[in-house]
């Protein structure tokens, strides 16, 4: 990414501890507008914690202590008055899909409705578009009234992606979305993500190194709460990594 690209998310000196145990250790990095930044790293590296700081879901963990700043479009997320408005700008996809206990349609229409958008025809359009974007529409178009919780794991994951898109977010964060999804669907969603980056900025946490390589513009390696290296994919997936551990991790030598 060139220096001319706009910084969408600026993270500086971000540290998080849970009841005194450090999970993130002064992370500083920027995410540029319309890029796909992927974050890789072994279990407990702090990847999920990092995402939770972006949309302030970390607030709901009582013993979490956060230091440092996360800025979106230059505004510190900790200073925003309406945290719900902030969350509507950020789509989130969890590793294990949680279909809300309501119909498929209502799942996707939930966030817009909660934000006060209730126009039926607009909602119909929106729901269809989000379900198409998440490659689920054809499978569910005849049973939009069925319960979201009764879909298969992979379908529920795509439902949560559709839900995350329903607020037309500026930022989309995905946390190991392919855990519950078969390879074919994974590839379809990856195509969707490539399409989406024209409109949104994507932070993709993944434990599939090849997925980071396929999709991302840049990749960051987290290890034990620290940012080890962040660079363009060209560098990260080559022998020219700045840190030896990056090369080893990408090669599958540890983790």
């Amino acid at each position, binding site marked *: 990414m060139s220096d001319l690209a706009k910084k969408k998310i600026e993270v500086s000196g971000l540290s998080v501890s849970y009841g005194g145990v450090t999970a993130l250790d002064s992370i500083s990095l920027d995410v540029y507008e319309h890029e796909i930044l992927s974050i890789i790293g072994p279990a407990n590296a702090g990847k999920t914690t990092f995402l939770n700081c972006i949309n302030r879901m970390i607030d709901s963990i009582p013993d979490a202590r956060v230091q440092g700043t996360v800025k979106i479009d230059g505004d510190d997320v900790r200073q925003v008055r309406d945290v719900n408005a902030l*969350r509507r700008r950020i789509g989130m996809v969890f590793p294990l899909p949680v279909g*809300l206990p309501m119909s498929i349609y209502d799942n996707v229409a939930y966030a817009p409705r*909660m934000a006060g958008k209730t126009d039926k025809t607009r909602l119909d359009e929106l729901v269809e578009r989000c379900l198409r974007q998440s490659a689920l529409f054809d499978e569910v178009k005849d049973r939009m009234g069925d319960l979201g919780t009764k879909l298969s794991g992979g379908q529920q994951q795509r439902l949560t992606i559709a*839900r995350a898109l329903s607020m037309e977010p500026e930022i989309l964060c995905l946390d190991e979305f392919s855990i519950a999804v078969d390879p074919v669907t994974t590839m379809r969603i990856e195509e969707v993500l490539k399409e989406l980056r024209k409109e949104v900025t994507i932070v993709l946490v993944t434990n599939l190194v090849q997925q980071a390589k396929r999709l991302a513009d840049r990749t960051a390696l987290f290890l034990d709460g620290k940012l080890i290296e962040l660079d363009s994919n060209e560098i990260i997936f080559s022998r020219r990594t700045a840190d030896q551990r990056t090369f080893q991790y990408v090669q599958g030598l540890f983790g």
Partner: protein
Amino acid sequence: MSRGETEHTDFSATPMTEASHSRQKIARAFLGIATALLLLPLFAIIGLLVTHGMSAITAEFLLEAPTAGMTAGGIYPAIIGTLWLIGVSLAVAAPIGIMAGIYLNEYAPENWVTRMINLAIVNLAGVPSIVHALFGVGAFVLFLGLGTSILSASLTLAVMTLPVIIASTKEALASVPVAFRHASWTLGASRWQTIWHIVLPNSVSGILTGVILQVSRAAGETAPIMFTGAAFYLPFLPQSVQDQCMALSMHLFTVSTQVPNVPEAFPYATALVLLTLVVTFNFFSIGLRTYLRARRKW
């Protein structure tokens, strides 16, 4: 080797599985006996009440006031009085209890104040009803100057049932997976929107069951209403919550122990009516629960 033989060697019981099989049978038998023992007193009580009391249950008994020093007539004012008491106490206890339960489960921060409150609720639920009665006399009849009235008695019953309503509400709310709340918050829904659209629709059966069970408990109590609003003998129907009233539980106590020459069947018949009322409530609650459970969405 034929197919039948293979199957035999693969699936025949080993001594181990046979032993665990018979242990399972014994365990099952004991659990069954325990259940039967539990049902025995229930059927004995119902049998006793029906055989001794059924003969007294007539239209007159159900629809007329007691006469002749309670040795004749019926229990109509007591039925109506009990309905007043549980109605008013429900109107007070249910909203407060449910709202407190929601606050404690959904909003209250994890700290020592909350822990103290939760501890207090558990302990209050175990306070004997006679203690609630004394509290009711002190707080409502005397201090607030409400006198002996339906209001005082109902408030006393409400105070008695509140802790359990709060506890059962909290339990019902806690049974809704946290992941649903997180998913909802992540989508920008506020706490209250999440409670209203996600949590309550999926816990309403448990909440209502808890409330109704407490109503039927309140219907059967004597001590809390005896000094606060229930009348010994009052052949008129109450006109407002400031009046006193008769009540089935109180009347049962009166006709069994306090007045002479009551026909032998009267106490049994009164008890039978009270029991029918309580059982009706409970069946209603079970029905509601089954209906709402069937609509549950995960």
